[in-house]
């Protein structure tokens, strides 16, 4: 029973994720894309829950939906008047069958790999209290990475400011 729910939930979330993702790339209206992207993120966070990564699911919602998707929507709005002058769609875009071919082939290969690889499943116990373990790990083993990431965020912030501020002054 539990398993069934799990299965159903998985398929629902998977469907949401894939469908939304598909929408993101196929919709020509960017705002729609951005909203679908947010939906997709939600689907993904659902999958995280299924994978017993509650903390990640929360982070996903917070950062992706709360920040990134919003930024996208904002960005889309701000650049909406984008001039398409001089762009010739037929000339510019890569024929979609080529793109489809590449992506399709990639999926096929990956699926082949997934199917043929002998995974070394672990029979270990799943950690229950993920957030605290994560916190501990990040501040010990992964401290360098954490520091680097911090620096990265700082730099990105400075950079974003400098770039966005422009040359008006």
């Amino acid at each position, binding site marked *: 029973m539990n398993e069934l729910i799990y299965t159903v939930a998985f398929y629902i979330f998977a469907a949401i994720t894939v469908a939304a993702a598909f929408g993101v790339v196929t919709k020509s209206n960017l705002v729609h894309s951005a909203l679908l992207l947010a939906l997709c993120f939600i689907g993904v966070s659902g999958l995280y829950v299924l994978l017993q990564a509650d903390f990640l699911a929360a982070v996903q919602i917070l950062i992706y939906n709360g920040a990134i998707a919003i930024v996208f929507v904002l960005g889309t709005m701000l650049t909406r008047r984008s001039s398409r002058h001089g762009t010739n769609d037929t000339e510019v875009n890569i024929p979609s069958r080529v793109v489809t071919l590449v992506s399709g082939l990639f999926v096929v290969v990956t699926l082949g*790999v*997934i199917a043929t*690889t002998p995974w070394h499943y672990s029979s270990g116990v799943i950690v229950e209290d993920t957030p605290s373990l994560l916190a501990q790990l990040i501040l010990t083993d992964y401290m*360098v990475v954490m520091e680097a990431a911090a620096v*990265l965020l700082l730099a990105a912030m400075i950079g974003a400011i400098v770039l966005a501020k*422009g040359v008006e002054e």
Partner: protein
Amino acid sequence: MNIALLTSEIAVVILALLIIVFDLLMPRQEARRSLGYFAVCGLLGILVYTFNQHGASATVYHGFFVVDKFALFFKQLFIVATILTLLFSFDYIEGLTHNTGEFYALLLLSLVGMMVMASANDLLTVFVGLELMTIIFYILVGFDLRSSKSSEAGTKYLILGSAASAVLLYGMSWVYGFTGSIVLSEIAAHITASPAMLLGLGLMLAGFCFKMSIVPFHMWAPDVYEGAPIPVTAMLAMASKAAGVAVLLRVFLVAFADLQAYWLTIVSLLAGLSMIVGIIVAIWQTNTKRMLAYSSIAQAGYILSGLLAADAAGVKGMLFYAVLYMVANVGAFAVTTAVNNQYGSDKIDDLSGLSQKSPFLAVVMTVSLLSMAGLPPMAGFVGKMYIFMAITDKGYFWIAMLGLVMSMVSVYYYMLVVKVMYSKEAKNQQEFTASVSLRIVALISLIATLFIGIYPGPLAELANAAARSLW
């Protein structure tokens, strides 16, 4: 937990932060050159300090971060590259932007990224270090706010770089998934030639090749090099590429060594392709930076080919080559900067009559270019010999052959530049000025190129020690 091993990285971060602070404290109108000197002095201090770390080969944090001769070699390379780049670009940067302080700070932070990469001993550190460096470079590439080329270059780099990062990351996830670990040595222990492993390996190789601008993952490089401010281009060419090499070496030789049979052929093809494409396309370039970009693609091919030996000799060759390539590029970019300061553009034609206006810079340019082409007695020749001897030993003679032939073809377009400098008349009779620091950098590059070419012993020993510490 030996935090002392992180000292140099932390010091650079502090330096960067100090610069930001000072930048804020300084009056708006005051020139920021003092910040540049400050950065240079700081880096010099750190450079000296890194020599202190020699001998200590240790890992910290669950083996995620390793300080060995290999890492130190690259760190010193990055620091030197940064110092030299800063020195020759003071004038340029001041003409470029008002955000000089931020520029210096970001440059230093990207240096931190590279240093982290050099020491990274697990996939996550590799990834974060790489992103730290790359993302800052996205910003720096787009830093010339007046130039639409700069923002175009930044965007291209950002989009393609992020996509490549995604690919790299996806590859890492497969490797992690199959081996159950992200630490390189543990990966090596669990590795088998399973499809997932190879998929991950392939994706990671693609990702690294992108960073190193190996054909056919090189497409971004010419546009980005051309659009970016010169010091950034220089850093991209010298340091970012070297950082790519550093992680590539560590990952492939430590983690993936057992799968050599699978990746060697591909690497040989990629290296060969890079040499060919980089050189034949460079022939057509009219922009100095773009020409150097293609040339750097070819150089990346040469460096990569050293991987084919998959032993200490090959790695030694690569490290050696990375250094001399850096030295040569410093010279070339310094001259380009000087010319750009003069004329405001980077066309090869702008070099006209340089041999008359500034014979010294003309000589530096010539020697640098020829070093890249690999002509004796310049350093490039020795570097190529090291690499090619190592790979010939392992049966990749055809690559050596191809490399030598292509390097001579490359002389063709280097000669076109030389011709412009020596036989064309200058555009105007204006006095040619170049700052002292730029001249010093050019002189250093010249002397180093010739010295390494004629007496490669010391550097080779350093590189050798660094290479051996990988095993």
